């Protein structure tokens, strides 16, 4: 099992399509918090965010049967796109979308107090991210978030920020230095 944990998201998706159920389990465990944080930031409601996160992974699973995405590294952008669409559909319909879960005949899962507590903890971490945004210059924050939180490659970030990968590396490095200096100053 240790080996499957080391696979990239793209490899996990490939194995899922070959019927390896554990592969999708690893992907779920690896990416659920990212998707949850993304949805929580936009809904500000732990239960709605959990509900939408569940729909997101059901949609992802269905998408694999329709047209498996060609993902080489991180599946985060793909999952977040699905999450965003689920969120938009839900806003449009005035209720949390559940069509994908119905298609898969997934039963509703009860959300307990502990679950909400964990989501709120994640919310605090998201707030920490927002705090970082206040401490760091915008270019450094964008580069740091893309690299550390979204786990995107330097080349991919460079494309998005319209600069070279060397510049991205420099910005990430400076962001870490800035945070280190701020932390030492507070000690």
């Amino acid at each position: 099992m240790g080996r499957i944990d080391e696979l990239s998201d793209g490899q996990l998706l490939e194995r899922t399509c070959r019927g390896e159920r554990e592969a999708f389990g690893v992907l779920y465990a690896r990416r659920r918090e990212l998707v949850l944080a993304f949805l929580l930031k936009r809904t500000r409601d732990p239960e709605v965010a959990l509900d939408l996160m569940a729909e997101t992974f059901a949609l992802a699973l269905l998408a694999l049967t329709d047209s498996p995405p060609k993902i080489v590294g991180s599946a985060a952008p793909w999952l977040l796109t699905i999450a965003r669409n689920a969120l938009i559909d839900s806003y449009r319909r005035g209720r949390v979308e559940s069509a994908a879960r119905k298609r898969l005949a997934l039963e509703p899962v009860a959300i307990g107090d502990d679950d909400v507590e964990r989501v709120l903890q994640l919310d605090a971490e998201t707030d920490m991210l927002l705090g970082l945004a206040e401490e760091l210059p915008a270019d450094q924050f964008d580069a740091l978030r893309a690299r550390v939180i979204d786990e995107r490659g330097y080349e991919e970030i460079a494309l998005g920020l319209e600069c070279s990968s060397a510049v991205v590396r420099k910005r990430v490095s400076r962001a870490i230095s800035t945070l280190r200096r701020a932390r030492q100053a507070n000690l």
Partner: protein
Amino acid sequence: MSDFHSDYERQLLLSVDALFGAPQAAGASQVWRDRRLPLLAAIAIGMLLLAAAAFAADRIIGVGTPVRPTHGPERSTRSTGIGIAVPAGKHRPSKASLLSISFPDPAGGLPWGMRVVTTTRGLLCVQVGRLLGGRLGVLGQEGRFHDDGLFHELPPSAVDQSTCTQPEDIALYNGPGLAFGLLGPQARSVYYRASNRLYKMATSGSDGAYLIVLPRPPSVTATGGGQLRARVLTSTESLSAALAGHLLSTVIFDVGGRRCQTGPERQTDGPPICAEPVGAGAHVVPLVSGKAHLHLSLTVEKTATGYELRLAFTAPVTVSNASTAYGAEYALHGPRACEGGGEGMPIERDVKRGQRVHVTMSAPRKPGCRGVVRGRIFLGRQTSPLTGPSYDERTVGRFSFWVGPK
């Protein structure tokens, strides 16, 4: 101890078994998957379904050949016509973005989506179709693709020039049960009415895109055919009037951090009416020096039906996109019965300053007519792609020749 994640993960893994657990012959399944949705997967899901009808509407659909770009005499290239979709470069993402719009189909079919394609000649072209697995396409129905019922991907290269506009313009497209358009970067949301209910929807992307699909009257086909009407505006100055008869009732804009609304139906709980026109772009026609020497030459040859005019001129300024164009036109000045036999021809291509441009036009010969044909080369702004320069015109050269017996 059971929690949300472990319970849900367990169910997801069972779904993986149901969807992908059946053994497949590797070679056969790959080809088959490209052409048609996996039947085994469909059966597996179908067995689990509680709502089978909803499932059938968008799962039992195959995939056909992609839509091909239009080929013909008006075929565009990188530097002519409307241009071609800006391809993704080594260090540049594609400028053909599928918007995060997924509008449910009122008939329960595949949802509708929208893409904005930027062309090499600076136009924004809209593509509207159905969404399947993150792809935009059209369905083979109502006369398209021999009614094969398949999903045909609509690639960015297959843009329809009738939905291309200048990036500064506001474009509204309206057909039976279908409305879409680009309201500009300052548009934030739209209101529309359906079944006597008011809906609000955020615009999508940096061009203020919107898409609305409503149930169509029974007599109307899905594609709408030529019933799609386009209105192109240069600012919100006349937007309110243009929206009369359109599905949109109000548009909310953000002007310098302040919200305002425009449209035929004022939202009482909304922001104030937009005081200034929104979205007015800078339409600049390059200045032509009055002293520019055009080096215009004209050769006239008699043909069986009239004359062939071969013009050549040296471009005084550069045209680098479809917003401006050179044009050539002529008219016969003679007896009243002979007048009106003019012709105009837009020169729809990029032209560099100093480049020699060649144009061939034909002029019909009217029996008994004689007089002077006077023509000009001019430069101006195009109201829509490929319509020819129609305002802010500047004449950059003139020509004339005699026809008929002297």
